[in-house]
């Protein structure tokens, strides 16, 4: 058996390097392969240099180079896939959290009126229609015919369905799992009572003009904890 020495190995290493074949995953086994081929030639009784010439003459460097790129790609894509997998599992965790979050958090994104209405007054500082001074309007008003159905804007539990002759008049407060509560004021009547469970879209009451009101309308509020926030930002359908 002809065994190549270290000088010859170095020569071959440089030969491969000169041909651009020095990809980390490939260079060792390619060197071994070339060595085996040359050793095979040398067994026929020729010198290392002759064997080296024959082998490299038959060696398809161009194909090897192309495939080196492929190999590189396989390894990079493997790395990429691994990365992708970790990104994917992270995404799955987030999705799970979101799904879990939907259970834990009902966002009141429904429209509170089932029927014709128009947005009469928005959220924020306004000139109070009754007191005639600038005051904070902590909800939004929908002008609608008295008796128009008012519906739950998300699943929840009726926290209050009470008559309050001042202010809100007939008022419903629904607590949604999570941090939101919704408030419906000036109703003409109730369709639910305190403690009822409601689903989004259920009719809970009817538009009226009870309490501090000059005309039939629905006063609608969304509370995040104790903070009143603009319902217009929530209503999506």
């Amino acid at each position, binding site marked *: 058996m002809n065994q*190549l*020495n270290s000088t010859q190995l170095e020569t071959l290493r440089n030969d491969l390097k000169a041909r651009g074949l020095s990809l980390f995953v490939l260079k060792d086994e390619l060197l071994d392969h070339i060595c085996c081929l040359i050793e095979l030639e040398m067994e026929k009784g020729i010198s290392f240099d002759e064997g080296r010439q024959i082998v490299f003459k038959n060696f398809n460097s161009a194909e*090897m180079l192309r495939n080196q790129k492929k190999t590189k790609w396989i*390894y990079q894509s493997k790395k990429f896939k691994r990365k992708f997998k970790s990104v994917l599992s992270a995404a799955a965790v987030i999705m799970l959290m979101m799904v879990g979050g939907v259970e834990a958090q009902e966002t009141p994104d429904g429209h509170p009126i089932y029927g014709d209405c128009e947005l009469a007054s928005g959220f924020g500082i306004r000139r109070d229609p009754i007191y005639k001074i600038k005051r904070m309007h902590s909800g939004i008003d929908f002008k609608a015919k008295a008796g128009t159905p008012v519906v739950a804007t998300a699943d929840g539990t009726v926290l209050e369905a009470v008559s309050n002759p001042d202010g809100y008049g007939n008022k419903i407060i629904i607590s949604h799992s999570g941090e939101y509560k919704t408030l419906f004021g000036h109703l003409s009547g109730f369709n639910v009572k305190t403690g009822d469970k409601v689903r989004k879209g259920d009719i809970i009451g009817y538009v009226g003009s009870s309490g501090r009101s000059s005309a039939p309308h629905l006063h609608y509020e969304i509370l995040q904890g104790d903070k009143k926030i603009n319902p217009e930002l929530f209503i999506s359908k």
Partner: protein
Amino acid sequence: MYSKELMKGTLKTIVLKLLKEHEKMYGYEITQKVKDLTQDKIQLTEGALYPTLHKLESLGYVYTEKKEYNGRTRKYYLLTESGQAEATEKINEFAEFVLTMKFIFNSKLAAE
């Protein structure tokens, strides 16, 4: 030698079959084995063999062992458990394919 197209579809099966029968093999050994078994009719090129091996490795069908051999590194390929299953599947599929091809050729002969 057979056409590139034909070889492309069978190389994986050949490699898996050889690795199934031999505990571990290195690249050059595989090319020599194929050459011997097919009486030089199939000569695997390095450019085709190594990418196939790497592909199999990336799919988890083979794993590698490195051994020092006369100052150079020799990389052996071995089948993993899923590689064993894949080898069996590929071998069976190919055997059946050959049989099916025979039907086609025989029916053509019968028609003539």
